[in-house]
Each structure stands twice: as structure tokens, then as C-alpha cells.
């Protein structure tokens, strides 16, 4: 194709597409990955995240009890061989509940990442930065309106108004189609929480990508690509996107920590994924927000809080650490 040959004649050092085969093996991403793996903190953070996400995804296989099995003969027990982290006030196994709660958080963070940040944020950012004009203006203005709500208020508002509506619609659909168990499986909850967390993730990402694209547009490699008549999709996805991947990865890493925190916040308030599905926020609520009852639990069995809290903290802390390291790796100048 004509474009290929022209690019060979005028190789651009910033466009990742322009490189030949041997240059590609030293792609910026390979080098960035190498630098990342040499950072001890980053490796440690990734290891912890890997373990936490693994435990969450394979909750079925790593739990020791049914997380909802109530055993009134064994309430408020300390850690033992049978119950690794003890039991809560209803005799449920805390370790199994933490693992299943993690699964909820894991699913929500992944939904949030893919829908909010990656698909919506990146696509809108690329388009707004590239086309500018009315599209850019309207997306930015809309984002500003959304951003002018306090995050939590918006999340609560959406979770509260949408949930009954979506559940009713799904029930109607169940009745109509004869498929059972969509509501009881909790899939609807995940959907609602995913939507509620959208405003949190998309706008920051979109603004970042847009800004990057705006400055990239003025670069010579974009101009030359335009000059040789590269099609718009190719322009956006193979010239612009690879050049903003670094900041996108950094932001996504920080964003995942924030989404995990918000999921737990929502389930703490009782607006997240509903019981019987265990969630970390609900476990904390169970011990802390029950007035006098919770004071006695706190006083006599503070260890019940320890497990969910440690997991939440590790999750957010490691995403932040990883984000910091990624930032050093991808943007070495802005320390």
C-alpha cells in the first residue's frame, strides 16, 4: 500500500506505527514494562493485587464455607482451624465472606474500568480531541455538569433512582420471557452499581485523553499522516491512541482504586450489591453502623473488622502504589 512505503521513506520517531520490525521489538511499551518490573514496589503491589484479584475471581474454589451459612452455635468465634478468620455475629465464616466480598469488588472494578474509563472515557476523549468543534464543546459541558455534583451524591442518586426501575423492568422481562432468576442472581445489582459508578470514571479519563490528543494534533507525525491521507479511524486508533496509552494506563490504575473504594462505600450504605451476596462494605457496616450493638462488637471482637478492612486498604493502597510507579515509568519527566 502506498501509505506503507511513504512511511518507510519518512519514518517518524514518535509514531509507533512508523517503526520497522526490529525497532518494534524495542517498543516504548516493552521498555516501560522492563522499567516497571525493575521497581520493587511495583512488583510487590502487582503481586498483592494479583493475589487479591485471583482470590476474588476464584472465590468458589478458595472459600472454606458457604459465606451465607448461618451457624448460631458458633457465633463471634475467634480464628480457629475450622474458621480461619473466625465467625461473625451470625456464625458465618469471615474468611469465606471476605473472599466472596472480594469477588463483588473485583467484578465491579472490572466493569467500571471497561465501561467507564476505557470505552466511554477514552473514545469520547479521542473523538473530542480530534474533531474538536461542537462535539468537543458539548461533551465537555455535559461533563462539567456531571462533575459539579459531589461524586457521592451523584452515585447515591443514580443508584437510588435507577435500581427500582431496572429491577422492575427485569422482572417484567422475566415474566415475559419465562427466564427465571435474573434478579435473584444479582446480575441486575452489578448493572446498577456499574452505572452508578460511571460518572466517577469517565470524565477524568475523557478530559485527560482529550488534552493529550489536542497537543498531539500539533505534532509533525500527525500532520504527515494527514498529508498522506490516512483514514480517520486509522488516524485515531493507530496513530493517536498508542501515544496516549501511557497516561491512560496510569489514570486507570488510580481509577481502579477509586472505583473499588466507591463500590465498598455504596455497599456500606446498603445501596450496592444486595445481600445475600456478601460485600466488603456490608461486612463493615455490620460491625460499625449498628449503634450500641456495634460498640459491643467493636469492644469484644475488633478482629471481625480487621479482615475486610485490611483487604480494602491493601486493594486501594496497591492500586495507588502501582499508579505511582506507572507514572514514573511512563512520564519520567513529571516526578
Amino acid at each position, binding site marked *: 500500500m502506498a501509505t506503507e512505503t511513504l512511511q518507510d521513506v519518512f519514518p517518524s520517531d514518535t509514531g509507533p506505527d512508523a517503526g520497522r520490525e526490529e525497532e518494534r521489538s524495542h517498543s516504548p511499551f516493552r521498555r516501560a514494562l522492563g522499567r516497571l518490573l525493575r521497581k520493587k514496589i511495583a512488583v510487590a503491589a502487582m503481586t498483592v493485587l494479583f493475589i487479591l484479584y485471583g482470590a476474588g475471581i476464584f472465590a468458589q474454589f478458595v472459600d472454606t464455607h458457604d459465606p451465607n451459612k448461618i451457624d448460631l452455635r458458633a457465633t463471634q468465634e475467634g480464628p480457629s482451624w475450622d474458621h480461619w478468620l473466625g465467625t461473625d455475629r451470625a456464625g458465618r465464616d469471615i474468611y469465606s465472606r471476605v473472599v466472596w466480598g472480594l469477588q463483588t469488588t473485583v467484578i465491579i472494578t472490572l466493569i467500571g474500568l471497561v465501561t467507564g474509563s476505557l470505552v466511554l472515557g477514552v473514545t469520547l476523549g479521542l473523538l473530542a480531541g480530534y474533531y474538536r468543534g461542537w462535539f468537543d464543546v458539548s461533551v465537555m459541558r455535559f461533563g462539567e455538569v456531571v462533575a459539579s455534583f459531589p*461524586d457521592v451524591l451523584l452515585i447515591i442518586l443514580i443508584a437510588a433512582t435507577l435500581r427500582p426501575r431496572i429491577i422492575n423492568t427485569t422482572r417484567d422481562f422475566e415474566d415475559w420471557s419465562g427466564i427465571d432468576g435474573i434478579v435473584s442472581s444479582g446480575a441486575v445489582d452489578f448493572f446498577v452499581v456499574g452505572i452508578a459508578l460511571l460518572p466517577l470514571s469517565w470524565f477524568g479519563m475523557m478530559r485527560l485523553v482529550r488534552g493529550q490528543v489536542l497537543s498531539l494534533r500539533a505534532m509533525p507525525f500527525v500532520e504527515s499522516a494527514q498529508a498522506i491521507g490516512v483514514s480517520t479511524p486509522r488516524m485515531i486508533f493507530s496513530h493517536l491512541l498508542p501515544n496516549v496509552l501511557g497516561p491512560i494506563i496510569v489514570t486507570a490504575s488510580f481509577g481502579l482504586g477509586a472505583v473499588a473504594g466507591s463500590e465498598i462505600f455504596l455497599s456500606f450504605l446498603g445501596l450496592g450489591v444486595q445481600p445475600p451476596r456478601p460485600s466488603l462494605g456490608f461486612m463493615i457496616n455490620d460491625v460499625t453502623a449498628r449503634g450500641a450493638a456495634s460498640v459491643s462488637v467493636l469492644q469484644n471482637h475488633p478482629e471481625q473488622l480487621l479482615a475486610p478492612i485490611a483487604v480494602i486498604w491493601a486493594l486501594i493502597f496497591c492500586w495507588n502504589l502501582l499508579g505511582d510507579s506507572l507514572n514514573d515509568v511512563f512520564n519520567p519527566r513529571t516526578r
Partner: protein
Amino acid sequence: MLAYTVRRLLWTPVLLVAVSLFVFVLGEYGPGDPVEVALGQNYTEERAERLREQRGLNDPVPVRYFRYIGNALKGDFGDSFVFRGRSVAGLLGPKLWVSARLFFAGFAISVGIGVPLGFFAATRQGTWVDPTIVAITLVLLAMPVFIFAPALILLFALNLSWLPVSGWGGFWDTRIILPAVTIGMPGIAVMTRMMRASTLDVLGQDYVRTARAKGLGEFTVRRRHVARNALIPVLTILGFSIAGMLGGALIVELIYGIPGVARFALDSIFSRDFPVITALALIGATALVVANLVVDILYAVVDPRITYR
């Protein structure tokens, strides 16, 4: 500068209209028929119709929107669905006042501790103090408030018995200390990091070297030349951090049993008391928009070098 202020001032009402429209629509299409909730067991078709007519619910949406906003501007957010005959403003007012005082205390703590701490860390760069403070803020940043609240209760209220566990007794009461500190904690981390970074930035500036070169004492240099300039970027994040702290404040109120908006808001959500929810959203968003406006303008006033396009 003037042009910027004027543009900002003109954009704010537009933003507020958009926000209120958004809230109104969510409330409008939210679940639950207000008339059905209000009548409860006495529900009949004709009564419902009469009540709808009486409350003007049959009017077109734009008419109702303008009526709602018009009333809201006068501080009237309609009546609660659940607490019959009581106005939302009357129900929310006292609770908002409690929450606002608590929030202010938390905010003051985060700025009052975070800013000096960041400055301190930056001026001790190269010693063990700086990395220690940085490490602590990193750990704090990852801690959601629902980790702090129980931890502080356990330590100071239950084990040491220094402070009361929960409750509310106004601004000048020992019971405000624990919740306010809890709200302020994440803010402290943010402020410290921001202040440290901007102080380090200023310390490397030529005018600091000039100030030292002309023989000013280190104290004067730091106070007059470093601290003042370093505070400017910190101002910009005040708006963000207010928004960020709101969620924490809600949780803190729930855990410490403070009679603020949090419990009431949650109950309204579960009982689908939409006038209350929309009023809260409207008030919250307005407060945030105004706070950001003030910060923005303040920013330009404090630092005359800044010219907005």
C-alpha cells in the same frame, strides 16, 4: 482578570440550571408515585386525581420545573412524601446545619494540619523526616474513612476512654473531636502532599535565592517568600477536596451516630421520599459549584501573575 471573573460568574448560573434540570428529571422519572405514597392506604382513583390536580402534578413538565425551581430559590422544596405535611426545608434545615458544622470542623483540621505538615516535610528534604511523612500520607490516602472511624473509636473511646464514643453536642463539645478528625484524615494526606510538592517547587525558584542573597533571615524567607507562594496551588485543590470529603462525612455521621443529613438521606432513599433526595442533590451541587467559583476567583485574586484566557 476582570473578563475571566465575569465569564465565570456568567457560566455559573448556566451550570446551576443544568444541574437543577438533571436533578429534576431524575426525581421526575424516579420510581414511586408521590400521590400513591401520600395517600397510602386511603388510595382511591378519584382521591388520587383530586390530589394530583391540587398539587399541580397534571401540569406540563416545564411548568412544574419552573415552579419547583422558583420555590427552591425561596427555600421551599415542597413537602416530604413520608413525613406528611412537613416541609422538606423544615426537616432538612436543622440536620444540614449539624452536618455543615461537623464538615467545617473536619475541613479545618485537614487544612490546619495538612498544610503546615507539607511545608515542614518540604523544608526537611534530604533528612529522614521527609520520606517518613510522605510514606505516612501514602498510607493514609488509601484508607477510606470507614477504616479510620472504627479504629479511632476503638483506640480513643473504648481502650483509652479519653473521648466519648458517639453522639452530638454542637460545635464546642468534645464529642465533635473524633468524627471531625476522621473526616479530616484523608484531607490531611492530600493537603500535605500538595503543599510539599508546591513548597519544593518554590524553594527552587530564583526569587528565593535572591531573598537569601540579600541577607534575609531564613525564617523571613520561608514565611514571606516560600510559604506565601507555595499556598497558591494548594488553593486550587480546596474545591476538589471539599467534594472528596463529602462522602467520608456521610459515613462518619453514620458510624458516630450524628444527627446530620446522612441517616435522613439514606432513609429517604429507602422510603423513596423523592422531594428530600432531590433537595439534597440540589443543595449539594449548588454548594460545590459556588465553592469552586469562590476558589477560582480567589486564586486569581491571590496570584496576580495568573491570567485566564
